[in-house]
């Protein structure tokens, strides 16, 4: 066999002996998806091994203390397990928080079921190399335990490491983060605490991190942990213990045989061969939304649909790494884009992807075929979920009068999106001449349709920093003032006339939201209009060099301020370099103590 690793950043493959031990399926990672995958595979008679680096199964849902569910579809083996956990909780004397299951008892339920089904579990085992049959066929794993190295052959590997570590070691392709600055979603470092007489889990966000960069991970974890140090610990408000799981929402995402995007989901594109369904809103925790792409900004900000619950099919191909054989993934590293990864990561669905991967791998082993060649009907028959196709289209308002009525209301989001999807503008234009918020709502809808008649209203809204906030189903912190939305949309429409307005917004730094949206808009206009680059470049540089007022966002669910000035400096410097405009930002950055995350962005920007 061939031992495949990434060593010093390079793919290294060397010939090695065949291991003696053999399994049908090896599951790398016994966490949220992996534990269910191992159970589902062993229950189907597969000789199954699961390797878990911690000392327990269940991942974020047990060791990570996330012991409740956020939306999702209650379907599959994991729902039976949760019911058994409920039974176990009775008279157990274990802590059970309201509306949660006991993470401790779920650890036991998972491992006992895997063991009863004949599965083998190796805890405190870290996979360190992939064994390949040839250039593209995975045929086993090697791993490290306290007593040294181990290896085994198998017919299929299910990579449930959350960061596609096995796909990575096998030389597979993956993606990470968003396009603008390469950052993914924010993480949390959960802990159990006693507060106000009750036991709670702290889920407050910490900031950004690349979980596959141990430098960034180290920097973030140490700083986050140090924040918990108190001048004086008190019995009334204290920590019980810290989770040993770093709760990361997004890591590496594979390039799959099918790649799912938020754009496709919200535009009603038919997605064939679903093997699992997610049900969630596009739950971004990133409050610097202006750094997200247009799909996210149009959906979450301009159409105010952050809280809209979507039904998202996960196609079979999203579990199959492109160009590799004998391997599937389960969990958050599915082949979805960064936008959609903010929805397709909830525990119900992630557990179910474990079951789906196990079904696919088991059928492939039994039929002695590549998983791509297993008839889809066989897979679907074993998974037997309800089909939610077409569910997302129900949010669309069908008739013009409904859309107009919606645009006249204080909660116009659904109407704005419906107008955009309907694709006609004639009936919207008269609304621009009315008074009140309907003008703004019509302008937003027309902006999505790239109709130039909206520009006057958008400029007005941005100029006066219109502070209106629409009503949305959840009135979430992602809502943006109309002035900030208008600033973003002026950039989306490449409106050269608004450079003065946007420059004013960027200079004044009314808030991080305004500043990021104006920065986004100005750089886009500059991209489109080289003649304006000197003017825009001067504004961008001045803004990047100014230390005050401070520029930060609050992390979602916590009060932690997260500075974004250095990030804007780095991105501005890269942009001005590309435009060939001399500037003094690098000199400032060279003198600044950057965080590991900021250094990572700078490196990606070529410094």
């Amino acid at each position, binding site marked *: 066999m061939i031992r495949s690793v990434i060593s010093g950043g390079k793919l290294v493959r060397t010939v090695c002996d065949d291991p003696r031990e053999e399994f049908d399926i090896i599951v790398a990672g016994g966490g949220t998806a992996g534990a269910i995958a191992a159970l589902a595979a062993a229950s189907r008679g597969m000789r199954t091994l699961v390797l878990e680096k911690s000392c327990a199964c269940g991942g974020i849902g047990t060791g990570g203390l996330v012991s409740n569910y956020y939306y999702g579809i209650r379907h599959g083996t994991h729902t039976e397990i949760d019911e058994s956990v409920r039974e176990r909780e009775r008279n157990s004397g274990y802590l059970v928080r309201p509306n949660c299951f006991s993470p401790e008892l779920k650890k036991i339920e998972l491992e006992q079921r895997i063991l009863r089904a004949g599965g083998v579990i190796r*805890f405190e085992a870290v996979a*360190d190399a992939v064994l390949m049959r040839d250039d593209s066929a995975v045929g086993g794993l090697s791993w490290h335990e306290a007593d040294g190295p181990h290896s085994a052959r198998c017919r299929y590997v299910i990579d449930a490491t959350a960061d596609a570590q096995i796909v990575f070691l096998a030389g597979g392709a993956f993606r990470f983060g968003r396009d603008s600055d390469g950052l993914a979603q924010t993480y949390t470092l959960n802990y159990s605490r006693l507060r106000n007489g009750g036991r709670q889990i702290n889920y407050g966000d910490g900031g950004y991190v690349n979980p596959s960069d141990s430098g960034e991970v180290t920097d973030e974890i140490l*700083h986050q942990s140090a924040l918990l140090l108190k001048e004086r610990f008190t019995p009334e408000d204290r920590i019980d213990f810290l989770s040993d799981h770093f709760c990361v929402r997004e890591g590496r995402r594979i390039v799959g045989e099918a790649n799912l995007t938020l754009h496709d989901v919200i535009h009603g594109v038919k997605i064939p061969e679903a093997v699992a369904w997610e049900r969630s809103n596009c739950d971004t925790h990133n409050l610097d939304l202006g750094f997200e792409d247009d799909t996210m900004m149009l959906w979450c900000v301009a159409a105010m649909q952050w809280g809209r619950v979507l039904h998202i099919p996960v196609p079979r191909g999203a579990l199959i790494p492109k160009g590799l054989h004998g391997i599937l993934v389960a969990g958050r590293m599915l082949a979805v884009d960064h936008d959609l990864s903010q929805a397709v990561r909830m525990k119900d669905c992630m557990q179910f992807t474990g079951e789906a991967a196990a079904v696919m791998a088991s059928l492939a082993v039994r039929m002695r075929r590549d998983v791509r060649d297993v008839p889809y009907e066989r897979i679907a028959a074993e998974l037997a979920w309800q089909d939610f196709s077409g569910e997302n289209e129900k949010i669309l308002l069908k008739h013009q009068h409904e859309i107009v009525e919606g645009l006249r209301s204080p909660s116009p989001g659904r109407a704005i999106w419906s107008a955009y999807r309907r694709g006609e503008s004639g009936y919207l234009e008269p609304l621009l001449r009315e008074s009140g918020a309907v003008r703004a709502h019509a302008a937003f809808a027309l902006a999505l349709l790239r109709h130039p008649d909206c520009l006057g209203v958008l400029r007005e809204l941005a100029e006066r920093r219109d502070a209106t906030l629409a009503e949305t189903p959840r009135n979430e912190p992602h809502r943006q003032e109309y002035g900030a939305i208008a600033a973003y949309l002026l950039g989306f429409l490449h409106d050269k006339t608004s450079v003065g307005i946007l420059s004013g917004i960027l200079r004044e730094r009314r808030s991080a939201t305004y500043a990021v949206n104006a920065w986004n808009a100005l750089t886009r206009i500059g991209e489109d209009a080289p003649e304006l680059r000197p003017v825009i470049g001067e504004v961008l540089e001045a803004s990047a060099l100014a230390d005050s007022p401070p520029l930060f966002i609050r992390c979602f669910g916590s009060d932690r301020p997260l500075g974004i000035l250095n990030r804007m400096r780095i991105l501005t410097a890269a942009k001005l370099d590309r435009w060939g405009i001399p500037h003094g930002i690098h000199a400032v950055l060279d003198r600044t103590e950057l965080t590991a995350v900021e250094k990572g962005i700078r490196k990606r920007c070529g410094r």
Partner: protein
Amino acid sequence: MKVYEKIIFGATCYGIGAAWNAGPDTLILEPGIHPGGEFADAFDPGSAWNGPLQTGEARWFRACLEKRNALRNGAFHLPALIPLLSSMILENGIGIRLGQTVTSAIPENGVLRIRTAAPEGELEYLAFSYLDTLSVEHAAIRKKSFHAAISSDTDALPQAEGFQRGAFPGEGYFKMPLETSCTYPDARLRLENFWRTRPAELAAWTVTGSAMRFAVKLEKTARRIAPNHLCVFSGNYENPAAAFDAGVAGKEAS
């Protein structure tokens, strides 16, 4: 490639102590995410906190815990350990990488080539000496136990074998002794069964969490593998301050 003076496996209390005065040519590699995990993750609040300490650094460390109300009359508020050690590492500029498991340390031309399994894949380091403060050789285990954090609205924790108070009312630990061959699934199952049928005087106490690793004591604290390769098991010390003290002092055995 940079050659480190010393690479330390384990951000343990001993390991951090050993790196404390070592300067920038020392690097700690830790497989987990918690400094002091041999106590904090094992839910082991330690014992004999009032014992003598050799070094000023360790006396300062213990005084820090007392000043912050985390060490009261010899009882320890264990969750304070990770924040304090994290803060100490940052303030002292100790070189450290979390999430890296050392898979081999091989002598080569007068140095050691140390390989790790890391999120980035396989990484290599060179060092003149290697100090392993974490690894457990199964055959060398003298004592093994599995601990649970327990809590109550009352403070009536029995003064019985296996129960230990934390620093605050209603904060305690249950230490379940095990044979050395016991696995995690067996340990968790035993804990569950014990707690379900626990004595009446424990009825008000609940298990808030079970340990994230076994608490183990080895036959010998220190073992020299080669002149430049030493193993000192930090978990063998009675408490975090004692382990830190020994690390600072470079003491190899207790």
